[in-house]
């Protein structure tokens, strides 16, 4: 426990977390500080590309691990499963409508790639080495939760859109999945020689870009909080704090069952405990338009994301070290 607190407070004072806090402060104080949409998108493309490529090179280095396929399957299974858990919790803890609850559940079954990126930094700073294919697991976990959520919504009488081919294509080929999987494969194919060519671009400046990106996330989260007063009842808030712990617990179990390294276990917890705020919201606007976006965006970005950043990630890393060591 003490270790976790020590790690958490060490993590708290990194430039990344402080940048997020600065963004939150600026938005809540209604400063006009903003980061242009194009710059924010540019940074997210950079981060996705870099993390995917590094994952691919790591797999190229260590050879294809037999556990890769098992890990992918486990990730898909978790993403299918967690929305049911989240939905049950939401129906118990909050008064959200079935449609809203299903939409929120989709977010918590899916993953937050920025949380994953930050988690990878912390894992590395803690001296651990995670399996390179965890980035592929992340990509695999993005979409399945959406299907569970639409099933939940229609079972409860909600008017979920039919999953037509168009919607499938949109979800499976959404920008972040394509970029993550694509750069993973490029890293896998080009390996160390490829890395040598672009290392100065994707490794050295990575954490600095992450700082500015988290500044932007703080701004967006803070603006969301300001606009969402009233939306967040105590029950909803409690869910936003409890669900990442529950999710991380499932991740821990999966990681141990798979026999991942401590770094891999930590990242599995990070993934399972995080909530999407890019891919899933867009899918929900199309497939469950009656669900209120301020509920799921505020919960995912305004509650769970900061919780994971500040407390979750260091805790999961400490747990994984304790269990795995």
């Amino acid at each position, binding site marked *: 426990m003490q270790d976790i607190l020590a790690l958490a407070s060490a993590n708290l004072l990194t430039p990344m977390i402080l940048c997020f806090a600065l963004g939150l402060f600026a938005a809540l104080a209604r400063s006009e500080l*903003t*980061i*242009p*949409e194009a710059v*924010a*998108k540019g940074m*997210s493309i950079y981060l996705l590309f870099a993390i995917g490529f590094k994952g691919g090179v790591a797999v190229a280095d260590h050879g294809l691990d037999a556990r890769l396929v098992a890990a992918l399957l486990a990730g898909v299974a978790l993403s299918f499963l967690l929305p049911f858990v989240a939905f049950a919790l939401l129906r118990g803890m909050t008064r959200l409508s079935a449609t809203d609850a299903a939409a929120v559940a989709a977010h918590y079954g899916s993953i937050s790639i920025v949380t994953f990126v930050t988690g990878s930094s912390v894992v590395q700073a803690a001296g651990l080495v995670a399996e390179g294919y965890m980035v592929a697991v992340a990509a695999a976990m993005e979409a399945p939760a959406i299907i569970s959520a639409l099933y939940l919504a229609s079972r409860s009488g909600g*008017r979920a859109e039919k999953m037509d081919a*168009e919607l499938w294509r949109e979800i499976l080929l959404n*920008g972040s999945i394509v970029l993550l999987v694509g750069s993973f494969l490029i890293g896998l194919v080009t390996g160390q020689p490829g890395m040598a060519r672009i290392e100065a671009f994707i490794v050295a400046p990575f954490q600095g870009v992450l700082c500015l990106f988290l500044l*932007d996330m703080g*701004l*967006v989260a803070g*603006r969301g909080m300001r*606009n*969402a007063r009233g939306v967040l009842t105590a029950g909803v808030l409690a869910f936003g704090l409890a669900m990442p712990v529950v999710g991380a617990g499932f991740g821990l179990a999966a990681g141990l069952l798979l026999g991942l390294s401590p770094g891999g276990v930590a990242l599995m917890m990070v993934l399972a405990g995080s909530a999407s*705020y*890019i*891919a899933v*919201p*867009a*899918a929900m*606007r*199309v497939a469950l*338009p*009656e669900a*209120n*976006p*301020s509920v799921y965006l505020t919960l995912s970005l305004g509650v769970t994301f900061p919780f994971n950043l500040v407390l979750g990630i260091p805790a999961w890393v400490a747990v994984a070290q304790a269990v795995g060591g």
Partner: protein
Amino acid sequence: MQTHKAKRVEIIIEAPMEGRLTAALEKAGVTGFTVLPVLGGSGRSGRWTREGQVGRSGMVAVVCLIRPERLDALLEAAYAVVDRHIGVIGVTDAEVLRAERF
């Protein structure tokens, strides 16, 4: 100059629905439209801004100039898409040069 009566339809819609809307317009025989970016706005679902966003969030404005007799087909097609979604449709009388284009 010689101008011809037309309607100008402006549809403000969530960005993730843009593809579906334009597909529906094309199906309804609309021969042209223009998509304008939107910075932010306010409505029943509150205030929002595009700044700093990374997903396909936010809205876009789709502007169509069409012959008056095609208005109903267009509105029906647009409405079918917009119906359950956040968004606004406004129509104004307009005039165009080169009527053969519309």
